[in-house]
C-alpha cells in the first residue's frame, strides 16, 4: 500500500487515465432528484457542490456552499444494478426440426468493455464482497455475475460525513474502506486546500495513480485523512447491537414487535430493491405468439411478494408479519448460517427509501430490549 496526494483539479485526469485503459467509468452524478450511479465522461459529471439530507422515509438533494465532490451519502441506487442487473435475459430456445436449439446467454464471451466504479463507499465495497460470496464462491457460480464482475476497477471513497440513516460502524463495514479497492480516496477540503489523499490497494491502482500529477503523502496528510474518517464515525447516530444477534432473533420469532411492524409495513418491496446485498430473483418464461421461441428472463424478486413463497396450494408466507420477519431475520441471523457474514452493511437505504419510514435499527433494538 502506498499513499499519495493530488489536487482536486487532477480528478478529471484520474478519470481520463482510467478511461484510457478501456474501462467504462461509472460514477455518481446528479439526476432525477438524487445522486445516482451512471456512466460519467469526466469530473464535471460528479455531484460537485451537492449533498443529500436523509431520514426515515425521506431524501432531499441539497446544494452545498462549497465545492465538495463526495460530501453526500448512499443514494437510491447501488452498484448492484451493474453487476446484477434488475432484468436479464438468461436463456433463449428455438423449436427446431431436431427438438430445441438453445442458447445460454451466460456463456457468451463479453462484448462490452469492463466497468470501473468511481466513488464506491466502504459499505458498498462490503456489499459487493457479500454478493461475490453468493454468486462466485458457493457451489454454484453465476456466469452472468462473473462476466460483469470480472476485471472491474474500483476507486473507493472514504466517507467524509455520515448520512442521516447510516449505521456502517455497527456492522463494521465503514466508514473507512479497508479492502476490495484499487484506489481509495479521502477528500480534504478546508480553507487552505481541496485535495485527495489516495491510498493504493493494487498494482493496477498504483499504475494509474503514477500516470497523474500526484505526490507522496506527507504524515500530516495521512493524519488529516484519518481525522476525517474518525469524525464521520462519531457522526453516525444509528446503531445495531450485533452481539449474539443471531440467537436473539431466532429466539424471538414470536415477539409482539413483528406484529406491530406488520401493521405499518406496506409489503411494497422497496427495502429489498434498494438493498445492495439482496440477491433474490425470479424467472419468467415467455414465448413468442407462435410458440416457436421461448425466453427465460431473470428479474429482481423480493421476499415481500406473495409469489415469492408460493408453492402448490398457496404462499407459505401469507402474513405480512412472516414476510417482514423473514427479511430481517435473513439479514441478521440466517445469512450468518448461510454465508458466514451478516447480510446487512449498514448503508441505511432501507430506512431512507421505505415509503413509511420503518427503521430496521429500531426494529432490532425493540426486539432485543424486550425479549420474550
Amino acid at each position, binding site marked *: 500500500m502506498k499513499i499519495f496526494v493530488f489536487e482536486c483539479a487532477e480528478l478529471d485526469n484520474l478519470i481520463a487515465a482510467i478511461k484510457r485503459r478501456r474501462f467504462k467509468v461509472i460514477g455518481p452524478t446528479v439526476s432525477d432528484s438524487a445522486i445516482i450511479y451512471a456512466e460519467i465522461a469526466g469530473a464535471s459529471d460528479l455531484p460537485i457542490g451537492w449533498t443529500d439530507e436523509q431520514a426515515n422515509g425521506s431524501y432531499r438533494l441539497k446544494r452545498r456552499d462549497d465545492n465538495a465532490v463526495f460530501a453526500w451519502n448512499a443514494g437510491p441506487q447501488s452498484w448492484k444494478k451493474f453487476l446484477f442487473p434488475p432484468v436479464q435475459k438468461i436463456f433463449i430456445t428455438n423449436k427446431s426440426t431436431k427438438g430445441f436449439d438453445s442458447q445460454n446467454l451466460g456463456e457468451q464471451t463479453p462484448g462490452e468493455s469492463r466497468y470501473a466504479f468511481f466513488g464506491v463507499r466502504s459499505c458498498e465495497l462490503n456489499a459487493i464482497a457479500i454478493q461475490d460470496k453468493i454468486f462466485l464462491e458457493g457451489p454454484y457460480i453465476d456466469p452472468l455475475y462473473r462476466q460483469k464482475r470480472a476485471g472491474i476497477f474500483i476507486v473507493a471513497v472514504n466517507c467524509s460525513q455520515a448520512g442521516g440513516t447510516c449505521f456502517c460502524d455497527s456492522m463494521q463495514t465503514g466508514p473507512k474502506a479497508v479492502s476490495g479497492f484499487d484506489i481509495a480516496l479521502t477528500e480534504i477540503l478546508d480553507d487552505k486546500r481541496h485535495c485527495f489523499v489516495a491510498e493504493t490497494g493494487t498494482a493496477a491502482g498504483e499504475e494509474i495513480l503514477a500516470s497523474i500529477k500526484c505526490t507522496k503523502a506527507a504524515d500530516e496528510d495521512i493524519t488529516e485523512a484519518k481525522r476525517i474518517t474518525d469524525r464521520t464515525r462519531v457522526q453516525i447516530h444509528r446503531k445495531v447491537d450485533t452481539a449474539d444477534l443471531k440467537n436473539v432473533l431466532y429466539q424471538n420469532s414470536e415477539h409482539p414487535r413483528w406484529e406491530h411492524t406488520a401493521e405499518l409495513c406496506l*409489503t411494497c418491496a422497496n427495502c429489498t430493491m434498494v438493498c445492495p446485498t439482496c440477491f433474490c430473483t425470479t424467472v419468467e418464461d415467455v414465448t413468442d405468439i407462435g410458440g416457436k421461441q421461448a425466453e427465460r428472463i431473470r428479474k429482481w424478486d423480493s421476499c415481500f411478494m406473495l409469489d415469492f413463497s408460493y408453492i402448490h396450494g398457496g404462499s407459505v408466507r401469507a402474513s405480512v408479519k412472516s414476510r417482514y420477519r423473514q427479511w430481517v431475520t435473513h439479514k441478521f441471523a440466517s445469512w450468518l448460517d448461510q454465508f458466514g457474514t451478516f447480510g446487512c452493511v449498514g448503508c441505511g437505504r432501507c430506512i431512507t427509501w421505505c415509503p413509511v419510514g420503518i427503521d430496521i435499527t429500531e426494529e432490532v433494538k425493540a426486539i432485543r430490549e424486550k425479549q420474550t
Partner: protein
Amino acid sequence: MATKNKKSVKAAAQKKIRKPKLAVWKFSSCDGCQLSLLDCEDELLTVAEYIEIANFPEASRRVIKGPYDISLVEGSITTPHDAERIHQVRRQSKFLVTIGACATAGGIQALRNFKDVKKFISAVYANPKFIETLNKSTPIADHVFVDFELRGCPVNKYQLLEVINAYLNGRKPNTPSYSVCVECKRRGITCGLVAHGPTCLGPVTQAGCDALCPSYHRGCFGCFGPKETPNTSALCAYWQTLGVKDEELLRLFRGFNAYAEAFRKESEAHEN
C-alpha cells in the same frame, strides 16, 4: 404400409387447423381498453395469424358467429339490459377475460355507487323517465364467472398481448400482482414519495404499467387497482403525519378503481 402412414400424416398437417376465435365485448366503458388492442399495430398482425378475430366492433363490422374460444370483456354493468347481455356473452365464451378497471372494478362510473343515482338522473336529464339504469356500476365478476382479470385504466397493451400469447401457448400469463414500486426500482426511477413527498399510490397499487406516471415525475394514480395485500391504512396514516388531509386521501382513492374493495374501504374511512 410405411409410405401410406407418411402420406396420411402429411395430409393431416396440410389440413387447415382451426384458429381459436376471439371476440371483444363492450359494456359501460370508454373503449380505451379495446383501443389498446388496436394499439398493438405490428403485433396485431402476428396475433391475427394465430387467432381469428371474430367479433371486434372497434376494428371491423365483420361478425363471425360464436361460440368463441376467448372473449375480452370491456366495461362494467350499469343497466338491466347489460346485466342480461353479460350472461349471453358468458354462454358463448370458453375463456372469458375482463380487460380494464371498468370490467374488473366498476370503473370511474362506480363513483355513483357512493351516492344516490336517482339524484344524478334528475340533475342531468331533462326527461328522467327514459333513463333505465342500475343503482350501482359493478364489475363483470359480480355477474358471471370470469376466467382471468386484466387490470389497468387502460390495460397495458403488452400485458394484453401476454394474456393472449399465454392462452395460445397453454401457459400462465406473467402479470404480477406486486406493487408499482418494484417496477420503479427495476427501472432505476428515484422514488418521488421519498425524494419529494406525498402523494403516490405506487406502494398499494398493482404493477403492470411499467411505472408510467412515476417515470414522468408524477405520483401513481392507482390505475391498476389494489396490489396483493395492500396496506392502504398504514400508508394513509403515515401521510396524515406529514399533513395530508382527509379530503385529499378521499380523492386519491376515489379514482378509476374506487369500487375495488381495498380502495373503497380506504376512501370510506376518510369520508366526513
